[in-house]
């Protein structure tokens, strides 16, 4: 019986080109009608250090790397211990090693995988100019049962911009690699046949073609769909690609991106752009967000809509910039001084970056509030094959007054808490936005009445907004609930599948709206639940603490938390859901 999915990793030292091979393999999977996810893992060198491409490919959309890695193709062993945690091998894994690269290192042997030796480098050398990564690609593609023509297409797409000669040599090397698969397959038949059920071409190659994109690009597109037309940027890993994607796209729709001198500048530019009437955003990661909190407070006080996408990485401080973690939750929720109600959203996977990006802009504009959209490195810098997602038809509309409104009050105390916001250029509504506490007219005030009124109104507009169903993605039934957010959603869903398969019904609740917490909705979603697992990728259980601060759980609460850089695995959740060992209880 064909598998429904498999995991595979390619590793090698600098210059071996395993990333390119991984990229082409994912593309080939997509062209074969499959879905897939690819994560890159890099050594500390700035460029050209050892790297690993970790893929999961399957017949259904993939948003988790799963528990184990079926096949590791190691072009060489340079610094392999750096990836040992990230590539989970066990007795059911197959390691394909080049005998000319020396002994299999203890860190690998310790995990007792099956090992097949293939002279990868020597095979590459049979083709003049042939590169070892194409041998690895060929091997992997053949084990996966991909059609040579399809892989060739993917190679053409990837390397075509170099020269036809490079492509031709690569194709020849690819074939040598594919040829080597037969021997491997016979060595470990149960493992090595990775072929998945569906390998028909992707549905309707005409109009409805699948997409292959990174989470960061998806965020960029979602935000563009939301109506953002101005972005100020300061590069930071792992958020830069959001900005880079927008730098290319914005000018095409009449928008602009400016590179700023730092994050203090970028966030203030964003405030300026939005004040001027243009939906605006920036993207950053922890250290940059830290520099933005003062200005985010200004945006709260002056009621300026904007979106900051924070792509989380390992913290604290510079931390582990190239690896994922969910430890910026606290600062996103509580990092502003004073009482500063705002909105925090979180995308649940790469595809959802499209939805959450667009929605975040809509929320910001509707409520005239800063929205911090959280994603993380595991989602932002990974690439996935997804079903395209149409833009949500909902319009982004800012409430504006009519021109020449008599006695125009920029900060009028309204029932909804939202006040009409005049845009420079509108006649008869000029006002001065202010971070000082102010009267409804926007005039500085130290009066208790004004302060209370404006605090109330700013809190009310966020609380009273109709967030509809989008506040969370919920599926399943049962007395156990897996409560999570961000890139752990896919992991939780996979754990849920396993639990269900074992006859344990569970529901998965992935919050897309972290703040304000929809306590009533959450209460309903948890009805009948006896046990809640709160799943998060950080050390201090920030998500759990936040939930407890705002929500009174009736069920028993178990924490399933671990810091980065290695993602939580589905099996850990399964264990936590069915034992009491891992977490503390309420």
């Amino acid at each position, binding site marked *: 019986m064909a598998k429904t999915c498999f995991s595979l990793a390619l590793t090698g030292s600098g210059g071996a080109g395993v990333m390119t091979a991984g990229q082409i393999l994912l593309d080939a999977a997509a062209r074969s009608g499959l879905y897939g996810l690819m994560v890159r893992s890099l050594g500390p060198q700035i460029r050209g250090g050892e790297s690993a491409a970790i893929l999961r490919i399957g017949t259904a959309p993939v948003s988790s790397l799963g528990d184990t890695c079926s096949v590791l193709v190691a072009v060489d062993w340079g610094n392999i211990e750096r990836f040992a945690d990230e590539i989970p091998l066990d007795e059911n894994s197959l390691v394909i090693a080049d005998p000319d690269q020396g002994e299999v290192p203890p860190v690998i042997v310790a995990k007792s995988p099956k090992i097949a030796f293939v002279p990868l480098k020597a095979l590459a050398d049979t083709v003049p100019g042939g590169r070892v990564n194409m041998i690895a690609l060929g091997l992997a593609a053949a084990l996966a049962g991909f059609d040579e023509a399809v892989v060739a297409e993917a190679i053409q797409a990837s390397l075509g911009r170099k020269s036809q000669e490079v492509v031709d040599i690569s194709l020849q090397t690819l074939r040598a690699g594919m040829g080597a698969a037969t021997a491997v397959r016979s060595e470990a038949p149960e493992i090595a046949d990775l072929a998945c059920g569906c390998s028909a071409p992707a549905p309707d190659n005409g109009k409805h073609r699948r*997409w292959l994109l990174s989470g960061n690009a998806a965020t960029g597109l979602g935000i563009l769909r939301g109506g953002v037309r101005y972005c100020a940027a300061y590069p930071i890993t792992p958020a830069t690609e959001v900005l880079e994607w927008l730098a290319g796209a914005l000018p095409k729709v009449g928008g602009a991106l400016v590179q700023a001198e730092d994050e203090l500048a*970028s966030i203030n530019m964003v405030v300026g752009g939005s004040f001027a009437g243009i939906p605006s955003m920036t993207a950053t990661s922890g250290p940059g967000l830290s520099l933005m909190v003062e200005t985010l407070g200004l945006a709260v006080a002056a009621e300026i809509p904007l979106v900051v996408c924070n792509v989380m990485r390992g913290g604290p401080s510079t931390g582990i910039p190239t690896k994922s973690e969910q430890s910026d939750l606290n600062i996103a929720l509580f990092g502003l001084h004073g009482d500063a109600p705002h909105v925090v959203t979180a995308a649940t996977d790469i595809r959802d970056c499209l939805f959450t990006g667009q929605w975040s802009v809509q929320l910001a504009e509707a409520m005239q509030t800063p929205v911090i959209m959280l994603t993380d490195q595991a989602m932002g810098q990974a690439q996935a094959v997804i079903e395209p997602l149409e833009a949500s038809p909902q319009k982004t509309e800012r409430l504006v007054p009519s021109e020449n409104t008599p006695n125009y009050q920029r900060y009028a105390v309204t029932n909804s808490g939202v006040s009409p916001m005049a845009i420079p250029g509108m006649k008869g509504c000029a006002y001065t936005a202010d971070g000082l506490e102010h009267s409804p007219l926007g005039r500085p005030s130290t009066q208790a009445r004004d302060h209370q009124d404006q605090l109330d109104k700013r809190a009310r507009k966020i609380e009273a907004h109709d967030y509809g169903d989008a506040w969370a993605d919920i599926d399943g039934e049962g007395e156990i609930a897996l409560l999570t957010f961000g890139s752990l959603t896919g992991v939780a869903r996979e754990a849920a599948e396993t639990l269900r398969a074992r006859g344990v019904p569970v529901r998965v609740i992935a919050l897309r709206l972290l703040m304000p917490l929809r306590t009533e909705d959450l209460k309903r979603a948890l009805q009948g639940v006896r046990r809640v697992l709160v799943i998060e990728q950080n050390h201090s259980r920030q998500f759990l603490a936040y939930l407890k601060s705002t929500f009174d759980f009736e069920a028993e609460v178990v924490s399933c938390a671990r810091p980065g850089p290695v993602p939580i695995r589905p099996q850990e959740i399964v264990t936590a859901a069915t034992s009491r060992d891992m977490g503390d209880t309420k």
Partner: protein
Amino acid sequence: MNTEFDPKNYRSDLKPVWCPGCGDYSVIAAIARALANLKIRQENVAFISGIGCSSRIAAYASTYGFHGIHGRALPLASGVKVARPDLTVLAAGGDGDGFSIGGNHFLHACRRNVDMTYIVMDNSVYGMTKGQASPTSEADWCGSKLTPEGPSIPPIQPLEVALAAQASYVSRAFTGDLAELTRQIEEAISHKGFSLVHVLSPCVTYRPEQRGYKDRVHQEWTPTSNRAEAFQRLLEDDGFATGTLFVDPRPPYTPMTAAPASMAEIEADFAI
């Protein structure tokens, strides 16, 4: 019907918090006159400031305004202008706001050359926080408990820094000469690119000796586009020369443009 462009119309009815005699009163007066003279309608002006006595100025104009946070007027103003090139953008603030906490934005605003005007009310002191040394305070000014023997650092030379950072318009005025101040602000607004108007604006409360500025200022500079000459002028400057120091006609910053594309075309990049 000419009253539309009456300077009075450019003033809001909010009473300034400033001390009687503060130099900043002249600055709001000059801005109102300049806008009226240039016939720029209130609603087409965005006036951005930071935090400090001087930064309160934005709310005293009847244009659109943004009284932002300490040190960040320039990036906020740049954001406005790049997003909405049709607006006339003014930024203003104090020497602390602009040259201390805001120094980096000042550096980069000069070189970025976004088309806007920056008016710095320099009183060589932090007025708002009750009189500490600012970057333009004398090294031996002992008026603050925070630096009882003076800051012991030579004052920053804002015009030298602006020139070195490639500002395209640089001038200096004194609040005691309203006509010249107005002229410079008009000239600066009309200049295409980033313009700095450095205004000597006495703080009568924490630097009462600055009342004596009127005896020290001298009208000196007429515009030059020669950087060497401008540097030379500054090397000879006593800090009280006024006039237009330097004008460089290089084009202002504009963001990148591209051939228009539909969302579908943009999305097509992702399709396999």
